Every structure is written in C-alpha cells, then in structure tokens.
C-alpha cells in the first residue's frame, strides 16, 4: 500500500500533486456547501 520514494523530489511531486487535486476539489465543494447551507434563508434586499 505504501509507495516507496527514493528522492525527496519524488515524494514532494507525489504528495503535492495529490494535495493540489484535493485543494481543487475543496474549492468546488465549499461554495456548493455554502449554497446548501443558505438556500432556504430568507432573501435579503441587497440593492
């Protein structure tokens, strides 16, 4: 299960690559979660 890394470069390329993909997912997820949380709120006049 555990991937073997021979250099720090390999390790960082792997772990950072996955982290950036996760961060992209979070950037999509968080606004959607906010909409889910607030879509039944009473609408406020913002003009």
């Amino acid at each position, binding site marked *: *299960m*555990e*991937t073997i890394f021979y250099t720090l470069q390999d*390790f960082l390329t*792997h*772990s*950072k690559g*996955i*982290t950036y993909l*996760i*961060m992209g997912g*979070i950037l999509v*997820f*968080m606004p959607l*979660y*906010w909409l*889910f*949380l*607030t*879509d*039944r709120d009473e609408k406020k006049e913002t003009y």
Partner: protein
Amino acid sequence: MEQTSRISLRPLITPFNMILGIIIAMGCIITILRFTGGLAAVTHLDDNNPWGIWIGFDLLCGVALAAGGYTTSAACYIFGLKRFHAAVRPAILTAFLGYALVVLALHYDVGRPWRLPFPIFWQQGTTSLLFEVGLCVFLYLSVLFVEFTPAAFEWLGFSKIRAFIVKLTLVLTILGVVLSTLHQSSLGALYTIVPSKLHPLWYSGYLPVYFFVSSIFAGLSMVIFEGSLAHKYLHHKMDETHIKEAHGVILGFGKSASFIMAGYLAIKIIGLSVDNNWHYLFTDYGAWFLIELIGFVALPSFVYAIGVREKNIRLIQWTSLWTVFGIVLNRFNVSLIAFNWQLSSAERYFPGWMEIAISLFIVAIGIVAYRLATHFLPILHEHPEYQAH
C-alpha cells in the same frame, strides 16, 4: 420563621445538587491529599507521561470550550451582528469561568504551583511556546475579567465605572480575539515538539491551525449547548429579549459552526495528504482517526446544516452536544490516546480515579459558580436601568 427558612432551602436539596455536593466534598479531600502527598499520591503520571488528564481535559478542553467568549463578542462587536447581543454576557461568563478554572486546574498539575507567576514576572522564557501560552492565558483571563465586570457593576450600582468599562468594549474584544488566536494555536503548537511520540495521523505541522480552527466551532457549539441548558433550567431568569433572540443565536451559530467544521475537515484532509499519511488509515489507529474525523466532524457538520435548513432548533441543540464531545475526543486523542502510541500498554497512561475526581470537581465548581452568577447578576436578562435594547 423556621417554616420560611425550610421553604427557601427546599429547592437547594435536589438530586443534582446532592451529586454536585458529593463531588465537591470528594474534591476537597483529594485536594488535601494532592497538596500534602504530592502528584504521586493522587495521579498515575510518570516520566513517560508527565501530562495526564488534568492537561488533556481540564486545560486543552477547557480552553477550547471557553472559546465562545471571543467568537460571540467578535460576532457582535466586530462583525456588527447585534442580533447575537443577548448571547454575549452568558458567553463571556462561561469563558471567564472556563479560563479561571483552567488556571485553578494548573495549580493541581504543576509540581510547584506557587511558581506559576514566575514566567510572567520574574524570568521570561521568550523562546518557549509554554511561555506564550502562559502569558496569553494570564492576559486573556484579565481581559475576560474586565469584560465581565459591567454585569457586576450594574448589580452593585456603580454606574460611572460601568460606563467607563462599556466604552472599552471594542478594544477589549479586539484584545480578546488577538490573545485567543495566539494561545489557542500555541496549545496545538506545543505538540509539534513531539513528532516521535504523537501518532503521524494526529501529528502535523498544521497542528496550531487545527487547534485554532477547531476552537472556533467548539466555542460556537458550547454557546448553543450552554444556552440550551440555561433555557431549560434558568428560563425564569431570562427576559423577553433574551428569549426572543435565542432562536436566532442558535440558527446563526449552527450555520457558522457547520461551515467552519467543513473547512476544518478540508484542512485535516490536506494535512493528511501533504504528509502522505494515507497508508496509516488502514491501521487500528486509522480507524480511530476516521471515527473522530467522520463521526465527530463531518457528520455533525452535515447535521448542523440539516438543522439550519429545516430550522430544527432541537436538532441543532443536540448536534452542539455531539460537537462538544468531538472536541473533547480530539484533545484526548492528541494529548493522551495517540500520544506515546509506540509504548507498550504497560507503559501507557491511564488516569487514576482521583485524577478523574479532581476534573469532575473542577467542572462542579464551574456549574456552581455559573448558577450563582446568573442568580445574582444581570447575565440572562438586562438590568432595568441599563437596557441596550
């Protein structure tokens, strides 16, 4: 005369009060044992485990759950959400009592408690995180005390000094937020010194961020939970404004807690990924980590969201208790359960019954002090001469 005193005493003798009385009496006896026989007489602490439940529960959980003070006052006075005003005084009282009891608990835990003021006044260890935590807790307890005094001054009728303190509200709130940000995160940073002792799933360079972010939703949840108990048992002490604003506070704080918990879950996953710790998830500790993360962060966040969407106050109140348990579990995991994970079970720490009794004693003192304060002071209602609404 005799009949009158009997009538006034009757409500005091309830099963809950009797349990509190027994815990306090037992705590007093163990206190004598602690300060005459030393730490070894009452604790299971040793060189491998110098920090036990008095740090893991009384200090780490106490500080996190007292975060309601700075979150509520920041929401009301910095973000201008005046609809939460009724929640400020109970939150400040809870925070003040929480921090005061943290300092009381520290007197039991440190070997020479009379030296507690030394790092502040005699010899500053400015490179130590513990010094920063100590200094911030000392300053923040002082700030909370000043923030709390208007209620006492209203009760005592000292209107001039009360008016002066009220003018300082914004400055005190900013100070509170700054000091809380510093020491909530530094409590997590303390554990970055033990990478070989703390299990990799809980150890992270982001520990200070985790402790700070989790303290925000811990504080919000604690305000909801404590408010629910106050509504159930101290309803007669509340005025109309407090009762009217309560649902708005629960819905608003529930919404904030839900979103912040989702953010916390996100940064926990990022921490897992940055350190490439995925393979640990398939171990026993991994299962326990997932129980904490999914069972006590992701699920309560989602249930909070459902409660907010459906305006289900009861669901949000129960979720706040669930979240408080989650915070206690997280602090226990970092300080006790995942700490020294490589040692054999014979060398691991398990608190002695007297340690647990002292922790219950500290909580019992907090409950008694809260009830006394809400009984005499204008905490859950506004003083008729000083109404803000």
